[in-house]
């Protein structure tokens, strides 16, 4: 990536100003590359980009994990090596439910952690370009790709709606 000239960013001091700029830019049809905020701003999460499907995927992890665990229990205890304890049935379905629930939770946790790490592009020692160091502290940043949209217009919109500065985005890595 040619980092030097590809992006510009508008830096905001307040969430309200950020939201005004965000709405205005959507109205004018200006494309926003990304928004960096110190805490989740729900209006932006709902209106920028696709919805995350992580929760739906998580449900399917749970569904298949529960079937898998139950099948494993029935196979090992009922088919592979049935044990006789006190003449009780070796395929003791009701008491298998406890393990099924807990191991399902266990599997959902591990699988969705890895999915999160992969989809959100986060893993230990990962370094992504940081455009503005204040974005994790007290600044809100809108990033605009010059090649995809009219940079001059975006600059003026952001300035009008209360950006404290609109500058060339130079990430430090």
């Amino acid at each position, binding site marked *: 990536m040619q980092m030097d000239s590809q992006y510009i960013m508008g830096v905001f001091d307040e969430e309200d100003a950020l939201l005004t700029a965000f709405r205005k830019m959507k109205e004018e049809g200006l494309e926003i590359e990304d928004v960096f905020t110190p805490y989740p701003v729900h209006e932006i999460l709902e209106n920028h980009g696709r919805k995350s499907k992580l929760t739906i995927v998580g449900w399917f992890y749970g569904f298949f994990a529960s079937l898998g665990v139950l099948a494993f229990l029935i196979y090992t205890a009922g088919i592979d090596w049935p044990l006789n304890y006190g003449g009780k049935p070796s395929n003791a379905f009701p*008491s298998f439910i406890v393990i099924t629930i807990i191991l399902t939770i266990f599997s959902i946790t591990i699988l969705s952690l890895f999915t999160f790490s992969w989809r959100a592009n986060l893993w230990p020692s990962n370094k992504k370009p940081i455009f503005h160091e204040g974005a994790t502290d007290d600044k809100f940043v809108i990033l605009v790709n010059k090649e995809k949209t009219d940079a001059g217009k975006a600059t003026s919109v952001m300035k009008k709606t209360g950006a404290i500065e609109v500058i060339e985005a130079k990430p430090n890595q």
Partner: protein
Amino acid sequence: MYNTEIRGPLILGNKSLGQITTDIASPLYARPKFWWIVGLGISSIMMLLGFWAIYVTISTGIGTWGVNNTVGWGWAIINFVWWIGIGHAGTAFSIFLLILRQEWRSSINRAAEAMTVVAVGCAAIFPALHMGRIWDAFFILPYPNTRGPLWVNYNSPLFWDFIAISAYLLISASFWYLGMIPDFATIRDNAKSKVKQAVYGFFAMGWRGSVGEWKRYEGLSYILGGIAAVLVVSVHSIVSTDFAVSVEPGWHTTLFPPYFVVGAIFSGFAMVMTLMIILRKIYKLEDYVTNAHLDKVAKILMFVSLIMGTAYLTEIFVAWYSGNEYEIFTFFHNRITGEFTKQFWAMFIFNAIVPQLMWFKKIRSNLLIVFIISILINVGMWFERFNIVVTSLSKNYLPSAWASYSPTFVEVSVYLGTLGIFIFGVLLFFKYIPMIAISEVKAVNRYQLKKKK
């Protein structure tokens, strides 16, 4: 959503976003204080004592403990259940209050979760040692092996316990870590020293607060929150089945799962109270952990104490009402009166009666008294586990098998060792991790300011 005017602000002092970061992150940059180093030293000595005791237990055997054929479960199981109970606070705090949309949790949940992770780690030591031959501990895993293939018994509460504790440790640690990722990124971007930038940068995993990251962050916290809510109830229910599935007098009762879960939340919240009173005082975080926060925790403690009292009375009533002579003996001649009277009444007074003082606002707002009560609750909860484990076992059906029990020095040392691990862990948490969830507090603060406009 939190939108009543009655409760007052959650964060005092009209903080700006930058101020919140500075307030919470400043202990991380400051040089360690004298008391902190002393605390670390004392807890290290306790840990060393614990490691020595663990070494003796493993190299010589369980014979170094005071347990015998009759009282097979001594301090190890008491302390295991006690620690697991304390370890329920974090999840109870984060998850139940997340589901109930209680915004005030965000000032406390980080510390509560830290406590959870350390306490569950401490708890796991005891059953591992109690197995006797720790080098054979992997036998509990269901894997195709050369002994059969002999699979484990899926109907045994002891196996359920192993699975539940492992799952609980995994999920509470990952929930805790997930919440810390944005805060680690804040430290990475704010820290002056190169070492801090590198270390926190490593753990921040490249977080930038972008839209895609926040979306998936929220998605994952809903998933983990939803399933951990199930887990927090089931873990201690499973611990209670360790007891309830057997036919010992005083154990074989359907009351046990709710009784244990509520007891766990009780002791956990008491430990949270103890910790938060210390933490806000030392680090001057009174604007974030306000008196109103502690008042809410105190009210929860008071209410849960009522449930505990009801559970104790129910147990006694059912023992009498069943007409079963062994149950009557255990409760009326072995607990309320008899050899273990002191422990029974310590449990009853500390858990069911003393917290009721908090009905009075004067007492609730006197933090010294609240602090003492919260410690008494944890002492009381320890005696509750003592009552359950030791009184039932020492005198059951056959008088010829009756035996008494007192712990040896090694047993006590293992317990002191886990206390050392807990204090050590909490001190490291104070120093190296933002004690309050910075990003969550910012969101709560912003919501408050908006309402004012």
